[in-house]
């Protein structure tokens, strides 16, 4: 039943090209980011004598205004972007799933919590994140939470709508008639239906979280300035665009490619999970 084998890969790749392009790109980025210490130089080493150098054998993308290696900073910056993006998306998806499922099943909870969610949704993401960060001071952990919270209502709303639709289906009623208890009904008949929507929404949230992180770091409220991130690289290099364009283009293009990869993956997953296109073997 549905077990995947290595020999199935080419066929699956042809069937769901988006998943493979997006997933492949994302995997490549993650590997490059994780293996950064093995091949990239020191991202924080300041060298005042080598400021704003053009690309060379030593520093592939040249150096920035403090003489730091742009290539190393871009690669190490990927760690932050990917980590914050994936973890915020995971947090938002989990919280949204929990709230959405309970709201879909309990009227009183639904009335109270979904109004709070509506309120959260009306506040711009960056503004809410800045407000949350200013309560505790900067840090990676709070950054992830601050990005996840504004993304949660959209996920919760989506999951709730799926649950409300599915709980009316005759097969859910049939399960109840067969003596299934609520936890089992939720686990076996309702949660699987939320997975496709959750995956697609998760990818969207992830892409937007990466952008939010870059935006927050650009504004100086994201990751602490000593940690390289695509956002604060672009921020600190924007004055030198004409002299050393790579200092801005390297992180900028990486950001664009990462977000594209995540979005492609999301679209591909949506096609894959659609039960109408599901086939065995």
């Amino acid at each position: 039943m549905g077990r995947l084998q290595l020999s199935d890969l080419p066929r699956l790749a042809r069937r769901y090209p988006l998943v493979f392009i997006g997933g492949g790109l994302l995997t490549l980025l993650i590997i490059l980011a994780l293996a950064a210490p093995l091949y990239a130089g020191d991202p924080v080493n300041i060298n005042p004598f080598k400021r704003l150098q053009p690309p060379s054998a030593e520093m592939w993308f040249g150096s920035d205004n403090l003489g730091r290696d742009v290539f190393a900073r871009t690669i190490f910056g990927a760690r932050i972007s990917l980590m914050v993006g994936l973890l915020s998306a995971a947090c938002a998806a989990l919280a949204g799933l929990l709230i959405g499922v309970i709201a879909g099943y309990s009227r009183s909870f639904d009335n109270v919590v979904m109004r709070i969610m509506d309120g959260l949704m009306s506040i711009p993401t960056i503004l809410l994140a800045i407000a949350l960060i200013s309560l505790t001071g900067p840090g990676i952990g709070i950054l992830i939470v601050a990005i996840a919270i504004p993304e949660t209502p959209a996920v919760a709303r989506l999951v709730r709508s799926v649950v409300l639709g599915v709980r009316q289906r005759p097969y859910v009623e049939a399960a109840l008639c067969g003596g299934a208890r609520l936890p089992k009904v939720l686990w076996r008949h309702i949660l699987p239906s939320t997975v496709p929507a959750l995956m697609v929404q998760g990818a969207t949230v992830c892409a937007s979280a990466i952008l939010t992180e870059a935006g927050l770091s650009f504004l100086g409220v994201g990751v602490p300035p000593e940690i390289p991130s695509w956002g604060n690289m672009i921020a600190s290099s924007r004055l030198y665009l004409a002299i050393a364009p790579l200092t801005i283009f390297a992180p900028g293009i990486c950001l664009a490619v990462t977000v594209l990869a995540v979005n492609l993956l999301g679209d591909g997953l949506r096609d894959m999970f659609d039960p109408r296109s599901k086939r065995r073997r």
Partner: protein
Amino acid sequence: MNGPLLKVENLTKHYPLGSGIFKKSIPVIRAVEDVSFSVEAGETLCIVGESGCGKSTVARLLMRLVEPTAGRVLIDGTDIAGLKKDALHAWRRRMQMVFQDPYSSLNPRLTAAQIITEPVENFERLGRNQRQALAADLLRKVGMSPEMTHRLPSELSGGQRQRLGIARALSLNPSLIIADEAVSALDVSVQAQILNLLLDLQQQMGIAFVFISHDLGVVEHIGHRVAVMYLGRIVELAPCEALFAKPVHPYTEALLAAAPVPDPTRIRLQVPVDGEMPSPINPPNGCAFHPRCPLAVERCRIEVPPLVPMADGRIVACHVRAPATELSAPPIANRALAQIDSIS
């Protein structure tokens, strides 16, 4: 066997329209109004009526998919309408339901084996081999090949899917199966196969059926007794042959007259009934059928007709055709119930 398998007393379901925190009185949909009947072991009771008459709500009330507003549902003398969720769990084994739509009533993500063994696994733990054996056995019972166990619903035909639905209902060895329009979504040829399967199962296993349908041909084929519903109430409850031979209630008459009969020699009754069923939010006073009834008299507009027992073992609610004897009439429901017991 003492007492009927299933006994329904004064079952009522009102759906409130909107929530009424601030409003004094909320309008309600009177989906089911004071319905009483009983079913013996191994018997088929059919419930017929046009769309919206409350017959599906009765099925859902029996399974307690919705909570009744009033009334009792007794299985072997125990009122399951009043049971707490935990106590209800054990009674789920006794009665099972077959759904109308064989497409949406099967989870598209589960295999045939998973679908039909799930009810049993709600009650006991099954090993891998036991599950396989059970699935194969159930499939054989409903006339499917055991090789189908790994198929998904999307890989099966409508008839095969409905067989799966029946296999799922059979898995707990219930004494009663409620079939809500179980064949109306199927082709006529497949309908016949499924009906014959149900009849076979009834003979082999002694299962009682509550068979809900709008198709009088099907009802005539499989029913032992037939209850005719109109706007949430039973208007006539009669043995099958008697009902089809001579309907008493004018609504039953109209219903039979409207059904196509594949027999040109059979004389069709001419009962002019026009208009639509009134809204259950605001049902007419008196007999609910009086605005469309050709026989309606003044009394029908004022007084709800009680279910009155007739000589041939049927009960009918009609002032004209089955006038109640005036002297010391007991409350409607009690008398009807007494009559149900005596004819079943």
